[in-house]
């Protein structure tokens, strides 16, 4: 990716890969060849792919560990629910797109609020503060009550009675979450969102801004000394990432009939982080593949019932041990070189 043409080709292959998978899945869906469990996974896969890409922007490209990414997802999710459920007179697709857009914007605002203090810190301290913000967002949403009636939206941080609704509906009911959501999300919109997230991220990475961000990651002091405004670029990456997470959150929420704030806890943040690390830090294509495989894997292991999460844990540990084993990785590189040497001109992006 040192020269622009190679970068462009890499991008094109990534887009083509995603589109091809989408077309195949869409074809299989139309032919009715997809099992129910997999069909139900399609939108969550899109959501987690977007989440993984957006988190990779912070963890891989900016180089700051964030443990509260689910917080931004939940801001987008609940904003999306409020937007879509208070505009019921609009056609479903418009409601969905508006929900995603406003959800992303709100998460972006949350990103600014969180980012300004967080990005002053470094290393593990930064990580723990993102964790703290994630927990704070969850805790606040757990106490948020939103209702809608003819007069418009009502908000409260106390309880549902304090909304004083006149024959309206409660949209968000504190710890009970959002009870009655219209399931508006579709696989096509999910795919389009993946493309949008991908385009934003890849273009950002391969732009002047992206290079500045990566320079900060590689050596903050050196970057600062050549005149890069560290705070500005860090905040830019962080807020973009938050907004993208918010968009995927809105898509996620509108895929279910009800949703709880508890869903977006520390474990969800970690889940997405696992996608990013296993896919490779800063490797966008890796994030897509890891998110897809690891979302399907627990479902595919469903037959093993109680053992599936145990197996997931063991697989996770073993993969981390294997990929960080210098001897094993050296041999793998040698093997790759050998294979490449034999099949000259063949498929070389394996």
């Amino acid at each position: 990716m040192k020269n622009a043409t190679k970068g462009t080709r890499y991008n094109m292959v990534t887009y083509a890969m995603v589109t091809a998978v989408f077309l195949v899945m869409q074809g299989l869906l139309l032919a009715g060849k997809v099992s129910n469990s997999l069909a139900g996974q399609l939108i969550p896969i899109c959501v987690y792919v977007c989440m993984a890409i957006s988190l990779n922007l912070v963890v891989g490209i900016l180089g700051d560990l964030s443990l509260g990414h689910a917080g931004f997802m939940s801001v987008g999710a609940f904003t999306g629910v409020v937007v879509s459920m208070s505009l019921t007179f609009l056609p479903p697709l418009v409601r969905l797109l508006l929900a995603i857009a406003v959800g992303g914007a709100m998460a972006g605002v949350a990103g600014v609020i969180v980012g300004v203090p967080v990005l002053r810190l470094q290393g593990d301290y930064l990580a723990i503060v993102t964790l703290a913000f994630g927990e704070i967002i969850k805790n606040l949403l757990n106490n948020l009550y939103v209702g809608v009636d003819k007069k418009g939206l009502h908000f409260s941080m106390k309880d549902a009675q304090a909304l004083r609704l006149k024959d309206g509906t409660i949209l968000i009911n504190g710890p009970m979450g959002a009870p009655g959501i219209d399931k508006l999300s579709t696989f096509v919109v999910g795919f389009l969102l993946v493309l949008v997230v991908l385009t934003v991220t890849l273009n950002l990475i391969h732009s002047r801004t992206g290079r500045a961000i990566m320079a900060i990651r590689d050596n903050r002091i050196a970057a600062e000394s050549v005149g890069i405004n560290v705070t500005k670029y860090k905040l830019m990456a962080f807020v973009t990432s938050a907004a993208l997470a918010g968009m995927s959150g809105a898509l996620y929420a509108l895929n279910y009939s009800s949703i709880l704030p508890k869903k977006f806890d520390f474990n969800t943040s970690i889940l997405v982080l696992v996608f990013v690390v296993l896919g490779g830090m800063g490797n966008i294509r890796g994030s897509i593949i890891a998110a897809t495989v690891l979302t399907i894997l627990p479902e595919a292991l469903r037959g093993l019932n109680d053992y599936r999460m145990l197996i997931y844990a063991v697989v996770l540990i073993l993969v981390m041990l294997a990929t960080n084993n210098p001897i094993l990785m050296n041999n793998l590189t040698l093997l790759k070189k050998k294979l490449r040497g034999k099949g000259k001109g063949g498929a070389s992006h394996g």
Partner: protein
Amino acid sequence: MMNLLLNLINGISLGSVYAIIALGYTMVYGIAKMLNFAHGDVIMVGAYICYCAMSYLHLPPVVGVVMAMGVCTLLGMTIERLAYKPLRSAPSLAVLITAIGVSYFLQNSALLIWKSDPKVFTSVVGLPPITLFGGELIISSVTVVTVLANIVIMLALTTFTGKTKMGKSMRAVSEDKGAAQLMGIDVNKTISMTFAIGSGLAAIAGVLLCSAYPTLMPTTGSMPGIKAFTAAVLGGIGSIPGAMLGGVLLGIIEIFAKAYISTQLSDAIVFAVLIIVLLIRPTGLLGKQIREKV
């Protein structure tokens, strides 16, 4: 007035549990520079072991606590040997993900062994509550024992790290691993020992935690784990007195937030305090300020 005093005592008691857990985090961080997210789940295992010893084997509580400590110490050393030692030179994020994998592993093993239904933990302290000021102030015996345990552990650890050979080598390794090795310190043994002590303390914390809040589930350890981690960072991660101070402060803040501000928002308040402290002192209350060298 009595109410305030009672809240303060409860806060110190909860904070003592956090402090004991935070010690495990901070010692491991200080010596291996890793965030051991599986630590919270070691607490849970400790509590389950003690529960089993007391309920199924009908052993006295003291034996249960000792068994829990023994099992957790072994568990901590095994985890370190199998999962963390091969990653000594790997990037810190790889170690973090492995720790999370271990955490999933422990939680799901507990789920398989003990099932998801909450167990009711009988307090290990069977003494009657202490009544002061003619019945105006009633302090449960668990609270007193927790605070006492915390003080004993703190004194013992301070002596251990300051006076014994092993403790001194721990401090040396946490300061400079390479130099310590050149001085003839067995780094691997020292790290293993740190995990053993941290996990043994986690078992005590688990038993005390479940004696005060008697529901025991496979996820019991996660939230106290995160809170204790917060406490360790609040006090300055890597610093033993810092973990103590951070833990006790966090416990007091949590209980006061619950009593005087809002029960539901207490977690948000606790984490907000952490953020404010870190913004003023970026390395925690007692943490060492790191100089940046170009």
